[in-house]
């Protein structure tokens, strides 16, 4: 009985803490539904008395959000594909062997993981403009994101490969599989979940990427949603309900995916970042 009361009490406190922590999200959703005058009411209204559902259609149309989100999608899918194709094999080899060279490789990759994007963008911009990559700005952004995020992906996926028992692969080799065959038929399927979760994390990051897109993409019709949000927020804006509606449309799919896959994402993240 006392055990039950303790659990209820702790759960109650946890819910309060979560409510406080997640308040900014709630505020985004509520503000998006407010009328212009309700937004600036004092004291602020915590429940929308007169929800303005039409705001989503209005913002979607007036800010041309379909195009922005499409560009975000193109960039994120491109970056994830490139990272997955290049990164999976790299992570596999780094997980399979233990010697000095592997340590050196891993060290280099961890070092690349830490380079801040806003500090790398100057040489990337100048270099890309010299080799003509700025002609295809979305591809340029995909390449830049791939270079930035691949180390993180490799570290996470390596942890997934580490949990695949090597004996299974050896048994497949004894049975007459080639290395390639064993890799695709045995190892890859067993690490599939870890790879998928890591890919989803990279996708979420690339979907919200800002600094490379802002600097490399000049043409408005090729810019992703993060840059669109940035141009929406002028220094003296008072359209906060519209901006929050934009943010809501932009972020809700990401949040939904996260909540659905939460347990796996947290597990994948914790196994990679500290190990």
């Amino acid at each position, binding site marked *: 009985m006392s055990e039950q009361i303790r659990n209820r009490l702790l759960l109650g406190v*946890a819910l309060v803490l979560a409510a406080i922590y997640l308040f900014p999200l709630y505020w985004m959703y509520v503000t998006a539904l407010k009328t212009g005058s309700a937004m600036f009411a004092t004291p602020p209204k915590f429940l929308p008395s007169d929800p303005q559902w039409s705001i989503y259609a209005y913002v979607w149309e007036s800010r041309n959000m379909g195009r922005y989100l499409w560009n975000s999608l193109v960039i994120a899918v491109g970056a994830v594909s490139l990272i997955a194709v290049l990164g999976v094999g790299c992570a596999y080899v780094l997980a399979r062997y233990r010697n000095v060279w592997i340590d050196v490789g891993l060290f280099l990759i961890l070092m690349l993981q830490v380079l801040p994007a806003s500090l790398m963008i100057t040489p990337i911009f100048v270099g890309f403009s010299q080799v003509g990559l700025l002609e295809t700005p979305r591809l340029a952004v995909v390449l830049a994101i791939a270079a930035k995020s691949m180390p993180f992906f490799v570290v996470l996926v390596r942890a997934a490969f580490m949990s695949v028992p090597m004996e299974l692969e050896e048994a497949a080799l004894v049975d007459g599989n*080639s290395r390639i065959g064993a890799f695709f038929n045995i190892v890859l399927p067993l690490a599939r979940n870890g790879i998928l979760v890591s890919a989803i994390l990279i996708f979420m990051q690339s979907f919200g990427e800002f600094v490379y897109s802002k600097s490399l993409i000049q043409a408005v019709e090729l810019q992703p949603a993060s840059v669109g949000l940035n141009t929406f927020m002028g220094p003296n804006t008072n359209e906060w309900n519209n901006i929050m509606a934009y943010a809501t449309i932009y972020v809700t799919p990401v949040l939904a995916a996260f909540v659905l896959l939460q347990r796996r994402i947290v597990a994948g993240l914790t196994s990679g970042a500290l190990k």
Partner: protein
Amino acid sequence: MKKILSSVKDGTGFDIGLVLLPLVFLFVMSGLPLVYNVVMSFQEVDMFSLGSFARPFVGFKNYVDLFAQPETRPILFNTALFVSASIAGQFVIGFGLALFFWMNFPGASWLRGLFLVSWVMPGLVVGAIWNWILSGDFGVLNFFLRELGIIDGNIFWRSDPHYSLWAVVIANIWLGTSFNMILLSVGLSGIPKDLYEAAELDGATMLQRFFTITLPMMRSTIGAIVALGLIFTLQQFDLFAGITSGGPNNSSNVTQYWAWDLSFRQYDFAKGATISVLMIIFVMIASVVYVRSTRHEVRG
């Protein structure tokens, strides 16, 4: 030729191929820009020489000029303040939450995971939300602070030079706390339970147990998290772009935003590259600490 082919299919060639391809890609896309960055910091780069490789070398002139500028010192100081305040806030709140969720109860791990939504959201969206929460006249944060009796008049978080940096710090603490909490939870769950049972039998109080068991057992985790915090806060760019844009009058400017601002707003690519070189060296030192603190785990 046949030998090479069969090695690729069935031997070490397979492994080397798998590693070499991504390493070449990373070398071209990260290594070369890194080198190019250093080169540019010793050159005179302007809008006209942007397209050519041959530019006049000016030695350490960019570095000397940089440190002669009056805003350099305050911005370096802001960076240090931003990083240390953010890490301290994220770590303390994150540790408190991790300890709380460590007391196992039904739903604990699910709720704890839910906190991580702050971390997966696009940085610019986080910036937009906090920009609105922190606004001076109608911001909801000022309302809460007034109601709690902490402040009398409104604080103009984004436009008052005394508070502008703290506006970004608050948003950044919110953004990073959950990540700290999750990693600290992993560290906590690695401590054997019987240590606590033994200490309890010996009559150690909760505080004593925390300082003699929890903290020492968590030492390598804490080291890794602080190093990661340093790396992540030095990467933070979106919140500056979303909340204050470094203003007013550079009062909330930090090096990683300034480097971008110099290159892409003022078209002073040489100075942007110069700051980048300095900061990247600093970040790399921090990452060596991080890699060292996780090294025993890396070896698996």
